[in-house]
């Protein structure tokens, strides 16, 4: 993975992705050249949302400047171009996660909507009073609250796979819970707080053996790892474009065809219908049955460009780069006195590190890092309040990495933490 590039000496110490030096990759992200508080901007919050390469914006601008029209129903050339652009993006996304057919890719606003869609449609049709839904203690609110709402509507029961002190799922408890014949098991592929990469291949197989349907929250995995829905045998899986170089406003629900076809629609309106009478209607084919109203056309096209960009790098290389950065960061952070890291070791972890520093509140830490060294980290409960409670924490600080993160940036994070210690004097 290491290449030497004599023209840009700074990059010789970095791994490369698909033969491109990190310096070259960083050029594609203009925001990385800006300053904050008079210091170079260092973005360590890609888990919340990634930065976007110029290619993604170019694709969307080209759409708006040359091919903008509503899709699907237009007979004229520009509308055909818009439709083709959007549907080509769907095919790219299907291939990216190895879905069998592009009609299994439903466009939503984000991961959150994808999960709510399943909770509302599959959930209403399949869950009734007393039914068991298994979740985990490390779920993001988006993979928790929709099931709470479903449980309230239907009288279903929720049980939770606990996490160990090291941030791993307690798989023995999972096995026990599966014996209670759950209807659905929903879990995250990668925790957005602990970075834990869960063994979802085995977890899905066990769930299926117990007769349950599986919903994988892949918001953190699809952007960072190769994911193959057929190899995983996932029933439902979802993710958001904005976390993987793509625009805001678009996400994906993947589902097995038979499940999607059997589900009632979610929202009613234009495009999702076959025939409409005053008092009754019939539904369109997949994927449109679940895409009511004018879709996020430009965003789909931008998402497609993001997929192209990631494919050009190679997802194995993306993973490898993050693995190196994460190991480097874990080592550097462990050397900071008073710092506590949450979650597993580097080999079971994606590019996310949550930590606390002595009695400095994470919000104060984030403010200091921003103002003193231009480093953007996240501070708070990371939309995982039950997990915070599990560790008896109000909040953590979280640094997270992506294809453009450099080791120098980690060094500056550490310098910032030292400044914070100095300010809070201990």
């Amino acid at each position: 993975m290491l290449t030497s590039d004599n023209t840009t000496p700074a990059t010789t110490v970095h791994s490369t992705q698909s033969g491109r030096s990190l310096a070259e990759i960083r050029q594609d992200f203009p925001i990385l050249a800006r300053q904050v508080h008079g210091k170079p901007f260092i973005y360590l919050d890609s888990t919340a949302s990634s930065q976007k390469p110029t290619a993604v914006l170019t694709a969307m601008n080209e759409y708006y400047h040359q091919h903008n029209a509503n899709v699907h129903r237009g007979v004229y050339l520009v509308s055909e171009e818009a439709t083709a652009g959007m549907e080509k993006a769907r095919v790219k996304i299907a291939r990216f996660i190895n879905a069998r057919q592009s009609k299994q890719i439903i466009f939503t606003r984000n991961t959150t909507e994808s999960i709510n869609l399943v909770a509302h449609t599959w959930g209403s049709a399949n869950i009734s009073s007393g039914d068991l839904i298994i979740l985990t203690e490390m779920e993001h609110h988006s993979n928790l609250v929709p099931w709470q709402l479903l449980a309230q509507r239907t009288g279903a029961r929720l049980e939770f796979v606990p996490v160990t002190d090291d941030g791993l799922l307690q798989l023995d408890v999972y096995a026990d819970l599966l014996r209670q014949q759950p209807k659905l098991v929903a879990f995250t592929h990668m925790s957005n707080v602990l970075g834990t990469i869960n063994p979802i291949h085995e977890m899905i197989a066990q769930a299926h053996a117990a007769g349950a349907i599986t919903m994988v929250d892949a918001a953190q995995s699809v952007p960072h790892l190769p994911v193959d829905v057929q190899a995983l045998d996932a029933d439902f899986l979802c993710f958001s474009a904005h976390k993987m170089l793509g625009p805001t406003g678009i996400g994906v629900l993947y589902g097995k065809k038979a499940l999607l076809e059997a589900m009632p629609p979610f929202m009613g309106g234009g495009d999702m219908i076959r025939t409409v009478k005053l008092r009754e209607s019939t539904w369109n084919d997949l994927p449109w049955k679940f895409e009511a109203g004018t879709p996020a056309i430009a965003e789909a096209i931008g998402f497609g460009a993001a997929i192209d960009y990631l494919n050009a790098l190679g997802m194995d290389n993306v993973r490898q780069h993050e693995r190196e950065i994460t190991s480097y960061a874990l080592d550097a952070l462990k050397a900071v006195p008073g710092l506590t890291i949450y979650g597993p070791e580097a080999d079971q972890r994606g590019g996310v590190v949550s930590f606390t520093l002595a009695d400095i509140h994470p919000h104060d830490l984030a403010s200091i890092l921003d103002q003193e060294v231009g480093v953007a980290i996240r501070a708070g409960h990371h939309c995982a309040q039950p997990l915070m409670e599990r560790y008896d924490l109000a909040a953590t600080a979280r640094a997270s990495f992506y294809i453009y993160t450099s080791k120098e940036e980690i060094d500056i994070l550490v310098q910032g933490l030292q400044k914070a210690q100095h300010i809070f004097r201990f």
Partner: protein
Amino acid sequence: MSMDYREYILDHYRDPRNYGTLEHPDVHCEDSNPLCGDQLGMDLQIEGDRVTEVRIQGRGCAISQASASMLSEMIEGKTLEEVIALGKEDVLEALGIPISPARTKCAFLGLRVLHRGLAIAGLEQPQEDEDE
């Protein structure tokens, strides 16, 4: 003058062949194009291994109605095997004009109804939609 509206297409549109219904069809199917509302029904009479009679009913654009009319001519008198083998190429060849992406659903509406009808009657395998 538009290449897309040759005289013979307009002729099939104005005067569709095999228009009407059969009293006791062996195969009947109808469908509509959800995005534009074009409708088409098709009745087939089958004797032995041969399609002996075809009737179509429908309303829609020149492309959908003319292509169905042309298809009905292709079907009549053919063996089931030959009819099952009819594909998009055959329809496009009969139309003889380039079909823009938005109009392919119009052009293939008749073909879709034909194969759906045969599948429902158990005479051919249901076809999976392919991925573009």
